[in-house]
């Protein structure tokens, strides 16, 4: 944890205090966080920061920061990771992963190298595979059901710091 605090501190030394006993209300803006080397190459970095941020704007207080890395560490349990993964992939934050969310995810993953029809094909396949209740979008239950069977979810959804 001290290491985490050190990292947090070095991102903005003038703002972050070393002493947390007085519960200061310090938040770091998103720009600083997504420039961290661990997150820099991640195509979902903004979404990650947004989903851990309390005010939804992307600024993280130290607690949120610790939370983020603890969920993304290898020790976190699967359900916890699944919840946060769902939030991350839900771009419009309506608690459902709809087709537009899927398209955005896909574009971020492939850096827009797929043609439009390939994109629609893939999104349709995903919905067909995972949507259990037939509402055309993935609710959390669908997502969890699908992720729990995935063999490498735990190993890829993991950041070491």
């Amino acid at each position, binding site marked *: 944890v001290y290491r985490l605090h050190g990292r947090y501190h070095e991102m903005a030394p003038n703002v972050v205090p070393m002493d947390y*006993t007085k*519960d200061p209300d310090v938040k770091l803006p998103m720009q600083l966080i997504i420039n961290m080397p661990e997150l820099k190459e*991640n195509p979902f970095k903004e979404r990650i920061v947004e989903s851990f941020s309390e005010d939804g704007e992307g600024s993280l207080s130290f*607690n949120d920061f610790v939370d983020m890395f603890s969920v993304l560490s290898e020790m976190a349990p699967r359900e916890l990771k699944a919840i946060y993964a769902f939030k991350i992939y839900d771009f419009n934050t309506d608690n459902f992963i709809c087709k537009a969310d899927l398209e955005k995810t896909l574009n971020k993953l492939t850096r827009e190298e797929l043609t439009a029809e390939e994109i629609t094909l893939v999104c349709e396949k995903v919905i067909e595979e995972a949507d259990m*209740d*037939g509402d055309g979008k993935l609710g959390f239950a669908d997502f969890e059901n699908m992720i729990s069977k995935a063999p490498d*979810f735990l190993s*890829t959804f993991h950041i070491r710091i």
Partner: protein
Amino acid sequence: EDKEEDESKEEDNGSQQNRASRRKNYQRKNRDGKKAREEGGQKKDRGKTAPTKDQKESENKEKKTTKRGKEGEKKDRKNSTSSGSSNSSDEESLSEEELAMLKEQVEQKKKLISTMRNKPWRMVKKLSVLREAQDFVEKFEGALGKGKGKKLYAYKMMMAKKWVKFKRDFENFKTQCIPWEMKIKEVESHFGSSVASYFIFLRWMYGVNLVLFGLIFGLVIIPEILMGMPYGSLPRKTVPRAEQATAMDFSVLWDFEGYIKYSALFYGYYNNQRTIGWLKYRLPMAYFMVGISVFGYSLMVVIRSMARNANESTADGDDDNFIFSWKMFTSWDYLIGNPETADNKFASITTSFKESIVDEQESNKDENIHLRRFLRVLANVLIICCLCGSGYLIYFVVKRSQTFSKMQNVGWYERNEVEIVMSLLGMFCPPLFETIAALENYHPRIGLKWQLGRIFALFLGNLYTFLLALMDDVNEKLAEEDVVKNITHWTLLGHHNSSAGNDSTVTPPPLDPADVPRGPCWETTVGIEIVRLTVSDILVTYITILVGDFIRACFVRFVNYCWCWDLEAGFPSYAEFDISGNVLGLVFNQGMIWMGSFYAPGLVGINVLRLLTSMYFQCWAVMSSNVPHARVFKASKSNNFYMGLLLLILFLSLLPVAYTIMSLPPSFDCGPFSGKKRMYDVIQETIELDFPLFVAKIFSYVANPGLIIPAILLMVLTIYYLNAVSKAYQRANAELKKKMQMQREEEKNKRNNKASTNPMLEDLEDLLTPSTKTESPPKQAEDKKIESPNGTSPVRKPGRGEVLAGSPMASGRGAAFTPPSQAFVMQPRTLGIRASYPGQPRPWGHPLGPLPGRGRGQPCY
């Protein structure tokens, strides 16, 4: 549950509630493990400003005693004892009952500590709980006199942790040690998994060859060099006088004559002395055994690899329900921090998606079956014609070359005609096969397999003619040998007589080894031929890559600016990586090695070098001058096809070697078996002379045909039995898979049906909304019409309640259901009615419920 979450929501400042909620957490947790709903609580938590950890800790420290009391309370409740508040006084009193209770609490705390990590709580909660539990354990374990035990336990825990960490580090290290992993990953991300599978195969081959090389080098070459007679001491080890003038010429060396021929690289160099050196190392025996074990090891490795692949492919072949979803959500590796790696990863994800899309599209294609079949048959016929034609051509050329070798002045072309024809065939036929195969329109993966099979057949023709020529050569040499034997004999005699003519008592000076007339050492010749073939094969491959890929790419890139048509898109364009050609090249190369390693021990070393350079060279060539295939396809999960080819070639190359060992007599003056009647006599000799007597007896019994034939029969029966058992398992496997599939489908259907009733019923609702809609009056009229004859039950069952309550209605309780004229009045009434009949619990999603009800509605009433 909601209450629980509410409580956890007010966590920040209400210490009382905090404790209470945590207490409740403990209770629930102790009852049944992990709680997923904690996350629900957590999600709501995040909306509030959580106090910092330190603050929490200080708070907690204050509350510890009281809390402990409360913990004790709760645990007491669990243990159904009532001495909850007496916890603080336990340190003094230590009465038996309290001791036992304490022990239990300590155990529970310990368990809590060890499972803390898995709890999906927020960090602050975890820390406080952990600290508290630790203090509790410390405090009371001491009181219970378990001080030492605790230390030992702590030590054990620490050691266990260290061991786990060590194991993990070792695994990481091992994965890092695998050579060329990064290179292959790079290739994979740009070109797809099928191209990468070639490189993985290459790497595996390299490993096998390295082992073989180690075996041969360590057990045969090194002893001979270190402990055998040096060069020049024996006739077999010296360049004959006639050739000495040219022995160092490069052209001679290139042909593997001259000094190289008389070196440890070839069979002829080895002495047939039974034991050499001070270790009494039995070289001939070792030579023979190493030769056999080369084949044995290769066989074992190939079959083991096939078995492992077969295992893997059946293991995860069934979880393909979520391919695209998994690709989308789990393919990005969050650990990537390097921009280049990220680029690679993006490329690989894109490629992987494309692969899956191709797979998907292939499975959706359905065309005219008859046309396809006709085209395929046509293509196969054409290709068989080609193969026969090439086989005849090779035969013809070989016959001609035999007549040529009898002639005196042969030009360069005639001498090398066979090789030229074979290379030309090898260069032009595969593309021909590919163009014909375009008729067939297979999935690329299957098309690749067919292509491989055909080229394999083509190369088999090459191999068979090569072997024929070699056998002719060997037979000639054998005939020659007898002649030379006599010559040698007489020469030696002559030499003795002449030099002993003066003084018969002195032993004559030995003839200089270079002058002894040499028998034609057919084994060495065979070895030389094979080595030559291998080397030329290597060269041809490299040159093809260089010219075919690299020069072509340069040409297209640079000349494109001043050329009439677009070179990149049009004719030459960039080359695609020819997987089939390369794989086959590798497989045949390995076959050559296996054939030749008995006669030329140094061949494996050459091959190791070749594979090493090949890896780097081809990786570079692929990355720099190839483009990915137009249709990217995934390599079949099991590499069993390549392994199958390899196995076949291994068998084929074992045959000639076994034949020569068993039936041809070794040369009389070269090699480790010279002087024996057959090569395997060395085993006989060793058993007789070196082993105690009873071993020889045992072997003679074992070699008795009366024992061997029943053994063979037994093995055949075992094979048959195991085959049957494995088939039964496969069938059972398939059944289970089907069952699981059906279950999943049912689940899906259940939920889907629930949803699908909605649009249907919505339609119905639309229909039956009051007279504002035009279709509703006729429907209503219909209803009334149908209802009137049967005044008891409403026919139309709009709204879920009525549909499900269809059969109770039909069963005659119609009195209560007077058909109202307005549909919307129907709904609430029937709903209410449904509620009042709790005795008929109809599940919402019951798939059969609504339809029959509706269907029955019309005719029956």
